[in-house]
């Protein structure tokens, strides 16, 4: 296997293949930067050009693109507070507050550096696990997948900004937004009001853009401030890199968790992102600073979302089960290039698999270096006054939301959700739980339905189900304890201040 890996490295190191990989990396970064476009759109863009290409060149182009989507999408997440794609949602929690403090360069520096490490760790895990992964993946059935969705939902309590009732209510609201459209397991359309557009449900890009983009833009123009309050830039790229180096264990842990969760088909990037953010918050000291601009809140999810791509390739390559839209298109492309996904990818076509792994690792390095080089200039965008940015951002957001299904419904839904998001922001209702509820509504209901149909109530006693259930319980309990402690600490300090007066 090592021999094939070194052979594959010599193949990928040829100028032609490197060129294709860099082209894919460039397209991937552009697609990642534009909010609303994701890996699926990016892969679909290059798919027509793959046909007839030399297989290794095609693989390098595709993997270069897929590897860096979650590197490029950090720009909108940090600078605008808008998730660049589904897999970078949690980055906005601390990345945007850092940008508001004038530390966009620091947040981006840390994010790109850990994205690079995460991507390489993901590729290394993919390489190491290929021969032994089969029984692991097959051990996960619908009950475990349902419990993973519940694990994601349990993060709602953790991310409620100290308002548990409002947080859980927002999460429930998000679940309902996610329930719009065809019901899983029954021939019924729910809450569509007879609108054909809603039959497939609302696209995630529209919901994320509406919930976060419009309210932030409104805030900027109302305050007539720049994204970096005061118009000054503080910490630079190197400060972020140093922050990342100080948290090396967090990077490795989050990347490994991201790659492991990525291996589970059907657990999307958004779920991985939120789970890793929640775990990072729960296991960090002084976790009350999360959500206000804690660099660890950027490092955790950003390490995971690039590593997840390596993990997601396991079910795609070995079993022909695409875990996401991006891997589904990749699978189509592999077939176009003449490969048969399945066990052959680790036997007859092992060289192609190694080219994929090397492309993944190298594209992550090149992509992150390119982004790090551009960070200084891009971070200056945060000093432009809000009223000058607003019209351009509105145009970009509205047109980006239209890319979801290319239907006028996208634009109308964006405006309606944007107004609701604005009201929620003004009234200090947490908006993140809405997004988590929305993302998890489908998987939770689908896997619960499958579990009940296949196992009755017996699935509740499966060991992995019990283990994940216990983890959910611990997260909720530790979240409550930490919330109570923070409140008590706040009370003590205010009483102390009174006494001092």
């Amino acid at each position, binding site marked *: 296997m090592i021999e094939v890996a070194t052979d594959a490295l010599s193949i990928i190191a040829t100028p032609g293949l490197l060129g294709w990989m860099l082209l894919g990396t460039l397209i991937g970064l552009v697609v990642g930067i534009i909010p609303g476009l994701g890996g699926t759109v990016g892969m679909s863009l290059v798919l027509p050009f793959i046909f007839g290409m030399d297989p290794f060149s095609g693989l390098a182009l595709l993997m270069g693109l897929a590897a860096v989507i979650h590197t490029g999408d950090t720009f909108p997440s940090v600078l605008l507070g808008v998730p660049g794609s589904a897999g970078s949602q949690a980055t906005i929690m601390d990345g945007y507050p850092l940008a508001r403090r004038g530390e966009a360069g620091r947040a981006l520096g840390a994010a790109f550096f850990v994205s690079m490490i995460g991507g390489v760790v993901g590729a290394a895990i993919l390489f190491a696990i290929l021969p032994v992964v089969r029984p692991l993946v097959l051990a996960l059935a619908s009950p475990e997948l349902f419990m993973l969705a519940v694990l994601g939902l349990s993060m709602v309590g953790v991310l409620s900004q100290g308002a548990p009732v409002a947080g859980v*209510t927002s999460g429930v609201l998000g679940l309902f937004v996610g329930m719009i459209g065809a019901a899983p*397991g029954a*021939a019924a359309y729910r809450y569509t009001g007879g609108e054909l557009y809603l039959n497939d449900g609302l696209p995630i890009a529209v919901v994320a853009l509406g919930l976060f983009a419009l309210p932030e833009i409104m805030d900027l123009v109302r305050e007539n401030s720049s994204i970096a309050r005061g118009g000054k830039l503080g910490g630079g790229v190197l400060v972020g890199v140093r922050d990342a180096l100080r948290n090396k264990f967090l990077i490795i842990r989050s990347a490994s968790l991201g790659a492991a969760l990525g291996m589970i088909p059907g657990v999307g990037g958004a779920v991985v992102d939120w789970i890793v953010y929640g775990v990072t918050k729960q296991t960090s000291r002084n976790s009350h600073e999360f959500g206000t601009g804690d660099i660890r809140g950027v490092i955790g999810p950003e390490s995971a979302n690039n590593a997840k791509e390596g993990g997601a390739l396991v079910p795609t390559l070995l079993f022909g089960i695409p875990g996401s839209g991006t891997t589904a298109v990749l699978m189509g492309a592999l077939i176009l290039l003449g490969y048969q996904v399945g066990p052959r990818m680790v036997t007859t076509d092992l060289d192609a698999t190694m080219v994929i792994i090397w492309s993944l690792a190298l594209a992550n390095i090149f992509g992150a270096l390119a982004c790090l080089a551009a960070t200084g200039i891009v971070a200056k965008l945060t000093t432009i006054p809000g*009223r000058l940015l607003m019209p351009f951002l509105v145009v970009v957001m509205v*047109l980006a939301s239209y*890319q979801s299904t290319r239907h*006028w419904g996208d634009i109308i839904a964006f*405006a309606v959700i944007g107004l609701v998001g604005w009201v929620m922001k003004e009234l200090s209702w947490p908006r993140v739980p809405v997004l988590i509820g929305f993302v998890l509504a489908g998987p*939770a209901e689908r896997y619960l339905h499958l579990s009940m149909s296949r196992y009755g109530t017996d699935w509740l006693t499966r060991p992995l189900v019990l283990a994940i259930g216990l983890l959910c319980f611990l997260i909720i309990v530790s979240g409550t304890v930490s919330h109570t402690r923070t409140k008590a600490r706040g009370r003590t300090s205010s009483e102390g201040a009174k006494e001092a007066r």
Partner: protein
Amino acid sequence: MMISGAGFFSREGRALLPRLAFSGLLVLLFVFLTWEAVDFPARARYMPLTFGILGGVLSLVDMVTTTVRARRVGRSEARLHRESASRKRDTPREAPPELESKASALPYVAWVLAYLVFLWVGGAYGGSIIWLASFLRIENKSRWQFVLAACTAAGVLIWAMQMFLGLRWPNSLLF
């Protein structure tokens, strides 16, 4: 439940009225969603029904806690007033509620809605460029040279994304 309690007439309590109204709207929304769920087939019903009831109860709890909070701040504000009256001197006034500051964003909401109308009438190219020019001139009072440069850049960017990334833009619904 006493919604029109003394708390909401106080200065701070008035600031909580929008939150109370929002929670009330959520209660109504969850009641409606639960009501709708009753007619779904059995397999499509259990999740919306369960979460509809949960959401309704939670928003009701939020309404109650908001009311209690308003009454509490109302009482403490009244006490402060009484104390200041007895000392016969002006106590420093609390910061005014942020309602007016929040309402100052409304013209921009109107601008965003206007953009949708512009798109509807003129499509992506015409609508975006005319709206951009209007905003920059009327709201930002930008100079014509800047407006022209910005609109040209936006037009070129929209065209380039269509050409090179294969993106599609909304066409005018009228023409």
